[in-house]
């Protein structure tokens, strides 16, 4: 790596990663590509129900720059995705991942661009909504864009686009099966009910003084800084497969 990652990037990423483990967000799951490296994540996006993408399982690599969150991550699909805003090589083109430089050519407003309060969650939610609502003003895949518009303008009569997507969704389910993941198919399953944590503890004033007063009840073991590697392996927000019940025909 050319630039040494800043400690603030490491902190921000480990906070985000842990946050996503504690409170998974609907529609995707994340894991580290390699336990020792917080800067490369593998994410799996679930196709939203009631869209062409329903049941789809789209894997992508998310790479974070050394100065994250001041600069945006990049997203590259590993799963084949025929989409107006995805390049042939899988690179995703979405305004939220572009730095807010003034570029009138792009047709993107600076206000739609990256800023440091964006995070993995907001990015992936944008990606999920982009799936079903492509941006045809600045297509990364012109053929897909033309085909999509034909499908949309014919109100679904021209099925070429739809057929390709359905085929890709079908073949992505084989991948989900290999990963032991059940892709949620209904709105209900898709939306994880966020459970309220029983011990949403306020800032404990005790912590401030622990150092000063040497109160020796320090064995409650709440040094939660090192838990990352323990869980680094696990997918977050995944329903475990129990058997291959809707495995179906994972061909393409």
């Amino acid at each position, binding site marked *: 790596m050319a630039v040494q990652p800043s400690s603030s990037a490491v*902190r921000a990423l480990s906070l*985000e990663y842990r946050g996503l483990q504690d409170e998974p967000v609907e529609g995707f799951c994340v894991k580290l590509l390699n336990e020792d490296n917080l800067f490369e994540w593998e994410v799996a996006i679930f196709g939203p129900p009631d869209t062409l993408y329903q049941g789809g399982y789209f894997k992508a690599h998310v790479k974070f720059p050394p100065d994250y969150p*001041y600069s945006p991550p990049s997203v590259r699909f590993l799963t084949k995705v025929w989409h107006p805003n995805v390049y042939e090589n899988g690179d995703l083109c979405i305004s939220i991942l572009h730095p*807010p430089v003034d570029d009138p050519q792009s047709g993107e407003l*600076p206000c739609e661009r990256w800023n*440091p*309060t964006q995070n993995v969650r907001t990015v992936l939610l944008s990606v999920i909504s982009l799936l079903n609502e492509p941006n045809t003003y600045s297509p990364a895949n012109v053929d897909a864009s033309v085909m999509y518009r034909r499908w949309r303008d014919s109100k679904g009569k021209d099925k070429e686009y739809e057929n390709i997507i359905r085929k890709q969704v079908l073949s992505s389910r084989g991948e989900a099966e290999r990963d032991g993941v059940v892709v949620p198919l209904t709105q209900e399953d898709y939306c994880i009910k966020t459970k309220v944590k029983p011990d949403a503890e306020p800032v404990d004033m005790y912590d401030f003084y622990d150092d000063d007063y040497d109160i020796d009840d320090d064995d409650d073991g709440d040094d939660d800084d090192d838990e990352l590697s323990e869980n680094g392996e696990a997918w977050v927000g995944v329903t475990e497969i129990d058997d291959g019940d809707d495995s179906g025909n994972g061909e393409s």
Partner: protein
Amino acid sequence: MKVRIKGWTGVATWRWVANDDSCGICRMPFDGCCSDCRLPGDDCPLVWGCCSHCFHIHCIMKWLQSQQLHQQCPMCRQEWKFKE
């Protein structure tokens, strides 16, 4: 029983009064400091914009300095102006 106080030590606590718990840029608690600092408080103060959003001063400065054209609040994208 008579008690004679020979001495006493005052203890005070402080907190930032912000409308959030943590900085939207570095994601660290406001009562702590930004990721580049060691001590919270005067060394790593909070600043407010006219839009009422607040950040660690180091975090917002770093962001504003990287923006040549539009100095916007990263939260609400209004033009960033320091609140007096």
